[in-house]
């Protein structure tokens, strides 16, 4: 069995429908691909350490092979970080572990996108009314803020 399961051509990732509106607006205004939005949410969620455990996996879906090697590397790294993946090759091929890891990624991604939505709506506009410039400014603002956070 292939240990690099994210590159498997048939592997699909189904996202949560509770963040579908974020997918739609980022796709419409910033022309972002589904996997990029997923990764954006995941990075923000994982950075914040917050997960969204109420998933309804009826949202957008994408082939994991669309993720760049760099993005895949980060997702595997998180698996290793969280102890789900280790030096044992079986941990990479075990369907249960893969399932657990996917759930973890999706929880962080959904959480990140919900945080981003809250950030967007700080300007008083509903998510659906946000324009390209509002969304991009919100994302960049988040990135800048995340780097300026005082470590504790």
């Amino acid at each position, binding site marked *: 069995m292939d*240990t*690099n399961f994210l590159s498997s051509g048939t592997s699909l990732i189904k996202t949560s429908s509770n963040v579908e509106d974020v997918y739609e607006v980022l796709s419409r205004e*910033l*022309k*972002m691909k589904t996997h*990029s939005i997923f*990764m*954006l949410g*995941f*990075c*923000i969620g*994982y*950075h914040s*350490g917050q997960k969204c455990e109420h998933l309804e996996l009826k949202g957008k879906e994408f082939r994991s092979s669309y993720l*760049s*090697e*760099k*993005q*895949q*590397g*980060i997702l*595997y*790294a*998180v698996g*290793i*970080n969280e102890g789900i*993946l*280790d*030096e*044992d*090759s*079986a941990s*990479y091929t075990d369907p249960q572990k893969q399932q657990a890891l996917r759930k973890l990624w999706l929880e962080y991604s959904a959480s990140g996108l919900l945080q981003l939505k809250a950030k967007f709506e700080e300007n008083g506009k509903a998510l659906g009314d946000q324009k*390209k*410039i509002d969304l*991009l*400014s919100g*994302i*960049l*603002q988040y*990135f*800048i803020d*995340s*780097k300026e956070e005082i470590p504790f």
Partner: protein
Amino acid sequence: MQLEKLKISNFRQFEGDNVLEFGYGQQNVTLIKGTNGAGKTGIFRAIMFALYGDHYLEQDTTREDIHLVNSKLLNSTGLPMTATVTLYFRHNDVSYLIKRSLTEFKSDNKTSVATEGAEFGKFLADKQQYQKITDNIDQVRVEVNNILPQNIRKFFFFDAEKLDLLSGLQNGGSVAKSIKTGVFDLLQLSNLETASKVFNQAARDQSKELSNQLGDQQFKELEDKIETTNNDLSRLREEKSQIIDEIETAKKEEELIKQQIAQNRDDRAQAEILKNKEETLSSERYALNEVINEAIGRIDDTAIDVVLGSVDKAGIKVENIQNQRSDKFAKAILTESLNNKVCALCGNDLSAHPENEEHIQVLLKKFQVSEISGVLNIVSNSLMSANSSSQGIQAAVTRNYQSIVNHEDKINKLEHEIEQIGSQITMSQNELKNITNKEQHTLPNVQSNISTMTEKIGVKKDQITKLENKLQELEAQQEQVQIKDNNLKVKRDAVARLKRIGKEIDQIIDTYSTYSKEQLEKQMKVIFNQIITAEDRSLISDIKISNNFELSVIGKNGMSILNDISMGQSQMLSLAFITALATVASKGRNNVDFPLFMDTPFGRLDVENRTNLIKNIPNMTSQWVLLVTDTELTEGTELPVFKQENRVGKVYSLNKMDDGTTKIVPEEI
């Protein structure tokens, strides 16, 4: 001319006999008050009917049948009824009477005129004895025209709300022509022109007769040449005059375009600024879009950079796993050795040497790492790449964000400025284009035409001078021939005298026309400043009257403002023109002393202008008759001024009765 009394019988809404007298002398103001429909215009109509037999007024917008006989009587009796209007007036110290009547009858619900009559006469010996001059309608018209020519009546009898002298005096059209003819008549320029024509024609006729009597071939030839030269001269002068008219029209057009350009200079300057701002806005939007696209393209890497600090531990773990890697043996050898309990490479019995079996198990475990080396490489490469680009990404994000904020600020500012500038521009894009087109094309064309026509005038002048010299020469030659025959000396002298008088009249026309024009300009300015509000006094810096007696009103900016002034200001200017004209025309003679008869005089005017008129007009005209509504003669504003000035001689109220008729009732002010 001084109006004395108006007697109206069964005319319009006035049933039976109604009489009103007009104020004169120091109390030369007559106020005739009435609500709407009471018959104020009926009085105006009665005067115009009496003087000129008019059934319609200029202000009548439709040509629907207007019946002058009282309709109540006509309807109730079923018989032909007669309306009569008699106007008593004085002119040149003689009292006159003009009486007109009109009989109408009704048949099949249609009212028709049966007969119309007129009588004109005068009173002798202090009004004791009346002498009829004529009862012929045409003759009556002639008599009245001798006193108040029909073409100047609109200067003195008018509906103030519809007074439109200024546009008529500006240029073009039949209105303009009739007004100008009126001005020429009033100033007696027309009489002088007629006199010139008469004398010059008489000189030519006499000269011809002289020629016939002489019977001299040479004289006749000279006479023919003189006549041809005179005809050529007349033609050239006419052509020159036409070109002068065309130049004046072209100059007016030039001035109008310049005025439009000047008026819209601000708009055009603003439009230019607007255009520049819009271009800058477009560049800013483009630059913003570039930054946005750059930032969007970097989102994937930037997101990874955010999470980088949280996955550092994974990097260390991966490194440790990779350090333990060993794949010197095939995995099958290790598995087979463990299964057979004998080392497949050296034959060592593993059951006897459990320490060796343990070593092979460690080797097998390490071997498994090599199966995940691909994934581990992906992880370590990702982390290495992300770490190495982290600093650059952070700087780029900050730079992009700042740039977006700056561009957005600029765009917002520009949009606000554009909106503000746009709201200040009163002209549409098409109008601006039109003005630019006029400036770039029409104006140069007009100016070029003026220049060409001016050159033509120069050529015509030269031709005229040459012909005049030729004429003088021919006349001198003719005189020499005439002298030969002493018998015709008297006739010859008469011809010479007629020619001299003709020339002198031409000179008088020239001098008097220039003088009148200057006086009219001067007087109009003085009067306008007397009657206009203080605020509007600075509105007009000059009034110019062209050789053609066309009027230009020049504003503070040196441009004509005739098209920009309000209706009220236009009415005040018209009044200034009329009174100035009467003042100039009456110099040296006292028969240009007409009453000023105004319907709805104050309708368009504000309080200050009304007050100024009440104070000044009685001093500028011999009589002032006003047909006023209740809103034009209020206790709070106009009446106190009339009382204070003490110039009101007669006051009448037009009382509407229940049966639809009106009674004229005298009142105290």
